[in-house]
């Protein structure tokens, strides 16, 4: 199971990277980034996985007297942080793209033909 999950999530990461390489549309770039992020988050969860592990919530105090078989809770806590950071980044990226669109009328960073550097030569 561990390896299946790992391959799946790393696959998501690679798909995200593929998007970042091949696309130039800004929204698509952002989507690729989100896919990449999801992939990384899943990888983190996978790396904290224990075979046959339980949800790390102590239901009764007896849980603590038995040998512990929780999945590792720490990566999950990290993922929580990561998700929130991803949310913030995405919101900011969207507003940057909107600003850029209002400024230039484009949704890609490609330079148009009539646009030229005024100084460099």
């Amino acid at each position, binding site marked *: 199971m561990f390896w299946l999950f790992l391959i799946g999530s790393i696959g998501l990461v690679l798909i995200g990277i593929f998007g970042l390489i091949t696309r130039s549309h800004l929204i698509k770039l952002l989507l690729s*980034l989100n896919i990449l992020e999801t992939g990384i988050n899943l990888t983190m969860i996978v790396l904290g996985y224990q075979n046959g592990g339980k949800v790390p919530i102590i239901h009764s105090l007896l849980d603590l007297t038995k040998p512990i078989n929780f999945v590792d809770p720490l990566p999950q806590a990290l993922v929580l942080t990561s998700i929130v950071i*991803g949310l913030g980044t995405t919101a*900011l*990226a969207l507003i940057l793209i909107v600003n850029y669109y209002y400024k230039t009328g484009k949704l890609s960073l490609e330079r148009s033909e009539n646009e030229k550097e005024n*100084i460099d030569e």
Partner: protein
Amino acid sequence: MNSIVLLIVLPLVFAFLIPIFKGLGKYASKIVTILSMLTGMGFAVYFFITLQVPVKAILGGWKPPFGIVLVGDKLSLLFVMIIYILAFLNLFFFDNNFKEHSKFYTLYNIAIAGTAGMILTGDIFNMFVFIEITGIALYSLIAYSGKEQALKGSIKYLIIGSMTSLFLLLGVTLAYHILGSLNLAHISSKFYQIPNNLKFLILSLIFTSFFVEAEIFPFNMWVPNAYKGANIPIAALLAGIVSIAAGYLLFRFRYLYGGMRSFGNMLVWFGVITVVIGEFSAYFTYDLRKILAFSSIGQMGLILIAAGISNDLSVYGGFFQILSHSIAKMLLFLLAGFIIYEAGTENVKKMGGFGKNHPYLTGIFLIGALSLAGIPGLMGFWGKFNIVGGGIAAGRILPISIVLLAAIAESVYLIRVVFHLFKTDEGKIIEKKKIPLGYLMVVILLSLTIVVIGVYPQLLNQVLNDATKIIMNSGSYIRMVLG
């Protein structure tokens, strides 16, 4: 000394206070920011001066490998102190196009808190969080000017920065998965146990993120756009303050890659490529801001080389380089702000006449430029000189030779800018404008620092030697944090 956490928390408190006070007046948010930086500076100076032995600030009351710990030694507190001083001085910028905005100052405070956090924290996941805080604040600050270039730079920075910090996260998680800890000291105490290829994977993933902050070549596409488009104080912030934190991280992670020559090689060659590309690009362009941006890239490349070589001399030189670069680059950006404002253009060739209007200011520009070029007697010399020495002592003669060749281009384009400022026979006579007093004081202070430390490097010698020992000797760090 758990109170060093104040260095991170205080600007955050002030950042939250700004929305409350912003209604009180036109300059309320700026005054709050000045207060914030002053208190932060006061605390940083106090902590730095009273520091006898390295201290750790345990957060939440949990012991180091379990909870998060802030580490204040001579090195990190020095850097935090300089960040606060520079951030305070940066508030005296001059830019007539700039309008007040309370949110801008909020973000400024957060960015400073983020860089301080990056430096102080002893926990690699926490470091990731602070990198993100700094990054997000910077994306917004860069885009604030609203210029197309700034937006481009911001978007590029955001996408590359987020991508690489996700890689960093993957690296951190892998390290945690293998070694079971997130504490830098704890990881470095056990890092030797794992095989080389896994070590390298983890380090590569982590360093990609540092490379973005440190403007290393394949990850620095955002730099010219951002420096060209952003407001001058933000460009100064990027060049002067963020680069300090990035450079610091490169050296601090020597605890992990210290013994790996192949990884050091990789860093050296990336640094060489960065230096070459930065310096030659700057040599080509005549846009003042872009010249400074590319020069920044080149200087950061040199710092990466120092980190890759990582022997006594080069680490010492690297710290000198970080400090001298940030001070000199900040000075040059502040001057460039005034020059562009007065000349009304960013083309270096059209700035003739500025030297006639403001000879002393141009002289100060010369000081900054020569310091960047590594002329002796100025602060930049000792950094470059020692990095070259360390590189040769480590037997890396080829990369060092390439860097020195690129340094010729650097000297040429920097002195070219000064020439174009001083030139008298051509170019329109630009109208003389008044220099604000506060701005002048800051500029003089920075240039005096460059000269005084350049002539008396002993002033920094003791503390930088201690810092070098801290970096070279991971054992004492580990004992200090975990013991």
